[in-house]
């Protein structure tokens, strides 16, 4: 399918669904090494996003839809996740502004801008046991897939798989940013909740291609 506004809206709707489904899991992960509110906060934000989907104008572009997600998350999520995910979507929107249909290069530019936005706000680096550990492998896998001449869906699949693997790879890490950093070695063995929600959102982008 073409990665146009229909796909973007399907991605956003699926994102809201998947965050709602995993609300308790995300909160449980956060309770182990954070403050136990990640699922609740993300669900509050994406519920508001889902409500606003219907308000998008008929001629909205994918960038417009992503910008709506950004401003809504910044206004409703709170905590660290609000500004971080909000900035990610804002930068992603900027990277594809005006494009009615996204090609492989657009997808890589969008993912790269999102990741760079999170790094700019949160100042985390790969290996700090944060959502960056899902986003950076996703960006790299998407770029590799693009360079190998893969199609758009394959690029999204590569990004989602790399994000999932990157998230799982946070288990043995000591956290160096966010609340989990206070735990020192006690964070070892726990998965970073922000990396899990990031991987869920990237998987939703894949699933939306079959909607």
């Amino acid at each position, binding site marked *: 399918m073409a990665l146009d506004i229909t796909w973007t809206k399907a991605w956003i709707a699926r994102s809201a669904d998947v965050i709602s489904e995993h609300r308790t899991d995300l909160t449980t992960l956060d*309770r182990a090494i954070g*403050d*136990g509110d990640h699922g*609740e906060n993300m669900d509050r934000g994406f519920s508001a996003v889902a409500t606003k989907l219907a308000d998008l104008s008929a001629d909205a572009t994918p960038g417009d839809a992503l910008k709506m997600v950004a401003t809504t998350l910044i*206004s409703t999520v709170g905590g*660290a*996740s609000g500004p*971080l995910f909000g900035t990610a979507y804002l930068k992603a929107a900027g990277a594809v502004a005006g494009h009615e249909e996204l090609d492989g290069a657009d997808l890589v530019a969008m993912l790269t801008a999102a990741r760079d936005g999170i790094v700019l706000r949160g100042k985390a680096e790969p290996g700090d046991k944060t959502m960056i550990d899902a986003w950076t492998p996703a960006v790299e896998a998407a770029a590799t897939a693009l360079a190998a001449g893969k199609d758009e869906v394959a690029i999204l699949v590569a990004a989602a798989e790399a994000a999932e693997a990157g998230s799982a790879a946070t288990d043995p890490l000591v956290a160096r940013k966010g*609340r989990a950093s*206070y735990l020192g070695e006690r964070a070892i063995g726990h998965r970073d909740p922000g990396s899990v929600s990031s991987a869920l959102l990237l998987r939703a982008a894949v699933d939306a291609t079959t909607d």
Partner: protein
Amino acid sequence: MKKLINDPKNVVEEAVTGFAVAHADLVTASFDPIFVVRADAPVAGKVALISGGGSGHEPLHAGFVGFGMLDAAVPGAVFTSPTPDPILAATLAINSGAGVLQIVKNYTGDVLNFETAAELAEAEGVTVRTVIVDDDVAVKDSLYTAGRRGVAGTVLVEKIAGAAAQRGDDLEAVAAIATRVNAQTRSMGVALTPCVVPHAGEPSFTLADDEIEIGIGIHGEPGRERIQLEPADQIVDRLLAPILEDLPFASGDRVLLFVNGMGGTPQVELYIVYRRAAELLAANGIEVGVSLVGNFVTSLEMQGASITVLKLDPELEELWNAPVQTAALRWGR
């Protein structure tokens, strides 16, 4: 877990409603978005002070809104930073043109949301300065952590900077006073029990009956180590030693000693803690000039306490003793 609440979704709004009605002489609350300001805001010609953070730490911050302290408090969801929208709205409501000082506890969410709100306020022509409070010695301040947390010392920063603003200091001077208080303040806490976030319905962490967590933050997030329960005096020794070493405090210093309850510890135990802390300071040749004992920066119903020591100088002491009229601190007026 039993709680005296209605729908967990309405906890913050209902609490702020009650607070605003109870203290209508001091504050006015707004609800869309939620924030609390001084009843007489904006105060002409005065630098305005704003703070905020997740709910569940009451009386922090709304309990400190009023004459001589904060102009606005922005409560987020329980244990979750407020978003930039209410911070911006409150900033605009209190700005008299003399500028706004943000007092922000060093937690990633609070810092990011206040930073975003400051950018938005600056875009609307408000001059904003920010002081980050990071008084907690339990966390190593290094490249490998999010840095020290802002805990009970926040009250001292808000009171003393608030007094500086009330006497007419300009924005840079108030920010400098707040920075100085933070630089001279050290805190450390202990948890005896976990706390339960209303919408989560179960404890944020678990502690066995005979276990305590040393170096706890104000959300129940863990600190330095988990040990077997000990008599109060030994626990106080464990909290105070790293505080004194860190600044370091020295013989001949005059200090403010603040024993803070985490919400579920009775006053009778807080004074046992205070007694030992005061003895230890005296043994180290440190004079307690001012004392504060009570539940001021809480963690819902958590049992536990924190100790905060501020190295005083004559100006800071005078500002601490200056009149204040808020729901939670009131003297001289």
